[in-house]
């Protein structure tokens, strides 16, 4: 059973400004056997919090040839509950072991009174929430001794207390805390459709230099008497309007590490790789093979 630390397995691979894929458990074996020609993958941090066993062995093996991004879904940074010391320690242990090129979490919260929804709930966009979130991001970065990226989430509701827009909130958060921005273009599109704002204006308002990664994913449209609601389901190909928004985003930012996220009803691994290559073609970057 491999227990090698990161220092024993060599330096971490960097993540180039091209497309990678989200690596999920059903694809682990095939991925290691076939070593697909993409330069990097992203995994959910919490799936590798175990202190031993097969999962962490897989990640050790993947990191030998691929850049790694650790993407957290459970830290609940925006909650007014105390940050979980256990969660932070598990994340730090994983970061120290894997030495990922990127570490990210969400502009969200999920608990009150230590009762968790385990969903990515939207933050109220208020001055108090901004101060709170900025402080918490700084705490996480201090603990991990590195910068993290914060990702905008899809939302279906907005708080009546909101006093600034989400893009103003995100930009100011990055400025205050020194975090980077993980721009989920699909989430921008979904939220813009659901709340009736301009997705391009959202992206145009963000400080380009702070955007370090992009996410692309599929969503689902639900139509009923109340109109159309888009839901961020991660169970489908990237929709054409989201590809178009990505094209306009990249025209503004230049090529960036771009992730194809697909979490439910996973397709064949080849399909994910094809989506990544499509993203590379849009960004006009040459396809980068694994070393």
């Amino acid at each position: 059973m491999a227990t090698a630390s990161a220092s024993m397995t060599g330096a971490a691979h960097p993540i180039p400004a091209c497309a990678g894929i989200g690596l999920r458990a059903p694809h682990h074996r095939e991925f290691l056997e076939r070593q697909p020609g993409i330069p990097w993958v992203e995994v959910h941090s919490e799936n590798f919090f175990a202190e031993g066993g097969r999962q962490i062995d897989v990640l050790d093996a993947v990191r030998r040839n691929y850049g790694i991004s650790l993407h957290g879904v459970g830290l609940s940074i925006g909650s007014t509950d105390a940050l979980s010391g256990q969660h932070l320690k598990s994340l730090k242990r994983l970061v120290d072991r894997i030495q990922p090129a990127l570490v990210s979490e969400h502009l969200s919260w999920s608990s009150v009174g230590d009762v968790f929804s385990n969903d990515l709930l939207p933050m109220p966009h208020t001055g108090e929430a901004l101060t709170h979130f900025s402080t918490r991001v700084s705490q996480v970065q201090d603990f991990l001794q590195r910068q993290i990226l914060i990702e905008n989430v899809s939302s279906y509701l907005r708080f009546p207390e909101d006093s600034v827009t989400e893009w103003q909130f995100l930009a100011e958060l990055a400025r205050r805390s020194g975090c980077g921005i993980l721009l989920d273009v699909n989430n921008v599109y979904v939220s813009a459709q659901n709340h009736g704002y301009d997705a391009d204006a959202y992206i145009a308002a963000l400080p380009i230099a702070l955007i370090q990664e992009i996410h692309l994913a599929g969503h689902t449209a639900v139509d009923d008497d109340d109109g159309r609601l888009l839901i961020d389901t991660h169970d489908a190909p990237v929709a054409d309007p989201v590809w178009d928004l990505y094209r306009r985003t990249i025209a503004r930012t230049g090529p960036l590490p771009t992730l194809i996220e697909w979490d439910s009803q996973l397709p064949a691994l080849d399909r994910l790789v094809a989506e990544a290559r499509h993203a590379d073609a849009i960004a006009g970057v040459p396809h980068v093979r694994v070393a």
Partner: protein
Amino acid sequence: MSALRDAQAGFLAAILGRDPAHTARWPHRRLAVYRSNTRENFAAALEAAFPLLHGLMGHDEFRAMAWAYQRACPSRSGNLFYCGAGLGDFLAAHLAGTPDAPLADISRFEWLIQQVLVAPDESARFDFGKLATLPEAGHGSLCFRLHPATRLYSSALPLFVLWSEYQRRGKLAGMPPTASKTRDDLLIRRSGDGVELHRLEPGEFRFLEALLRGECLQRAIEQAAAPGDTSLNHGEVLARWVSAGVITGLIS
């Protein structure tokens, strides 16, 4: 309480359906997306961790059980892995005296499997050289370390058969007969991508159980012995599980 905490508490209460006043503040259809995510994420995590239970109950009944469990014992961690920790106690309390009572036993067994899957690695092998340096007269006071990814479980249910059937077919035909007079005394250990089960003799099970509790060798031998039963060869048992990497060292 801060305005932010007030806002979050009200929103979570609405999602969890705990307060009609908070629920009424939000458009039903949009709130339902968060409600659905909260329920589905929880149920999906349980489904992944309890495949036997899911197979025996069927999808719809399992989902209904998962949501009832979530209402009684909501997630207390940002890591959904831990949401199954209390399922055995929940089912034991809610199914006691019903024909489904054995499901609590199955859920406890499956939670041990989950613990085995994520337990720390242990690369050390038993150091026979160190043992040789210790005076034989003191061997009775030795305590042994078992691999962290090892658990023992005793059940009146035919868990070994059930697990083996699920591994072979990926599904279950139903609960096997439980009329057996003997218990399934199982050792669960990590192996490759998953776990492997070993069915133990009762004396061997009690012996390893005592070692796992940290009892010294002499005490473990005493606790393993059934009245009138002298058949357990402790030396053989130790040698077998040292060789298999289950007993990994001495506790100094």
